[in-house]
């Protein structure tokens, strides 16, 4: 169909377009203003640095699409790394420990979803509670220690390869890409995806349309949990050490990536493509500002301003429609 679409509708329909432009602008600006940014190794590093938060953010995107929010995602991933590391150190086969860790994350996701749909509690409250509980559980489980891992399976995602003998890539990047494609497909090409959007957009309309609202929301939290488990694997690939104090701001960082990526906190609008771009924007900003010699704290200021701007854009673009 070749119907013309107005610019405002195009933005509404392709919420990732704004962030994508912002990403390109940021890359170009940093490339021109610093000597080192365009360096291939640096670019590769930027991507590697966004893998854990990016993977957490993919799960977070699903939750936010249903008009929910997950404050516990990073804490779940951390518990998962501890589980994997400690089991392996205690003699469990690494692949089995890995599966256990990922399944545990999915189970915690199921508990979250169960509380949200079964007791009809607000996701903010449920995941705030779980954040506290899971963090405490991690500390109890770790007994003040951290757990270095040496097994190649656990560090596999950090393995580097060279494309064209030049560009450093890791298996972690490939896994992230695969997850992105899988989720993009599920969200845009299957009925499940349409239901996720419909439920986040207007749950009552979804129910009256014959969608199993609770089942859909529950499945979202389980899939998100799986993402957090894989984020744990990504984390071990980046730093082969399971630390109960890692990623303390990972929940907020993942929300930042989702929001900067153009997904609406009000639910029903957004995309995993946007989130991928959002995670890259945060990483590019950090790297570029560092190389321009700008203090960490100003980097936080820039990121924070971007979040507010992104939400304002979302509000504005929808305000004009109604």
């Amino acid at each position, binding site marked *: *169909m070749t*119907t013309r679409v107005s610019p405002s*509708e195009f933005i*509404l*329909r392709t919420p990732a377009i704004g962030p994508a432009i912002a990403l390109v602008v940021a890359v170009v600006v940093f490339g021109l203003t610093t000597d080192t940014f365009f360096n291939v190794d640096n670019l590769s590093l930027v991507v590697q640095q966004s893998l854990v938060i990016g993977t957490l953010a993919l799960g977070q995107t699903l939750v936010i699409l249903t008009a929910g929010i997950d404050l516990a995602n990073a804490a779940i991933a951390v518990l998962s790394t501890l589980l994997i590391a400690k089991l392996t150190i205690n003699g469990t086969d690494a692949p089995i420990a890995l599966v256990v860790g990922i399944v545990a994350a999915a189970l915690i996701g199921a508990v979250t979803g169960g509380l949200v749909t079964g007791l009809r509690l607000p996701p903010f409250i449920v995941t705030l509670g779980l954040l506290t509980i899971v963090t405490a559980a991690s500390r109890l489980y770790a007994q003040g220690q951290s757990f270095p891992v040496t097994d190649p399976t656990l560090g596999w995602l950090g393995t580097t390869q060279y494309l064209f003998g030049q560009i450093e890539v890791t298996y972690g990047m490939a896994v992230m890409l695969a997850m992105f494609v899988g989720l993009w*497909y599920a969200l845009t*090409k*299957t*009925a*499940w995806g*349409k*239901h996720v*959007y*419909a439920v986040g*957009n*207007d749950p*009552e*309309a*979804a*129910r*009256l*349309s*014959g*969608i199993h609202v609770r089942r859909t929301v529950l499945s979202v939290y389980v899939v998100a949990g799986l993402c957090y488990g894989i984020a744990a694997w990504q984390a071990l690939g980046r730093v082969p050490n399971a630390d109960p104090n890692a990623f303390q701001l990972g929940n907020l960082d993942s929300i930042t990536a989702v929001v900067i990526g153009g997904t609406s906190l009000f639910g*029903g*609008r957004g995309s995993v493509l946007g989130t991928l771009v959002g995670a890259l924007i945060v990483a590019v900003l950090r790297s570029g500002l560092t190389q321009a010699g700008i203090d960490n704290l100003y980097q936080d200021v820039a990121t924070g301003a971007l979040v507010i701007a992104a939400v304002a854009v979302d509000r504005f673009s929808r305000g004009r*429609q*109604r």
Partner: protein
Amino acid sequence: MTPVLEAHGLVKRYGRVTAMDGADFELSAGEVLAVVGDNGAGKSTLIKALSGAVVPDAGQILVEGKPVRFHGPLDARRYGIETVYQDLALAPALDIATNLFLGRERRRSGPLGALFRRLDAKGMRRDARRVLDELGIDVKSMTQLVETLSGGQRQAVAVARAAAFGSRVVIMDEPTAALGVQESGRVLELIDRIRDRGLPVVLISHNMPHVFEIADRVHVHRLGKRVAVVSPKTHSMNAVVGLLTGALRMGDDGTIEEVGLTTGLGRS
């Protein structure tokens, strides 16, 4: 002849509010039945019970004389009962075709559909286009987002969805409320066409001229229950208005009488 859809003694309470208070309902084959009543009389609650969107606290629903229990809208759909809800039940951020097929999406044939659950987006768009064209509903593209449509176009999409999928009963809760004269006329024509297809239609409307133009029978609802069923051929608009405001009452023998003037507080 057995009614297509009937209900006896439906009750629904919301806290202290009784939205339905022993409501009866009867829809015959092939007819257009108008349901009229004041704001808050419980019309929407009644049809929500008939479409599975609300589970009544008491009472019974029968389809073709057989008792049924609807636990959700899907149950009623399985019996071929389709509904246009008063607030339309569309997802504004999704496009027209997606909304039309929401909750009953079609998958591609072959392994792509069976294994990868791939939707037949093209086919659904094509069918959506056909349905809207048949109803004379004018929209540019099936991929247009519902939130970019006018109120009337949205209503038309909701009506089209029910008309396309209804196979036993089509229920419409104020389908012309947001429409202009011309668009209302289209919906009335559409109701006519659905009736010609042999499907009975339940039409809730506050618009008496519309009701009298199209309905075969008029169900008058007041304070949570049915107080009368009249034929537009034998009764006037004034009589119907009197019944729904409570100024008139229908006796057991079907005669209509004025309600007494001596309530102590004067006429109410």
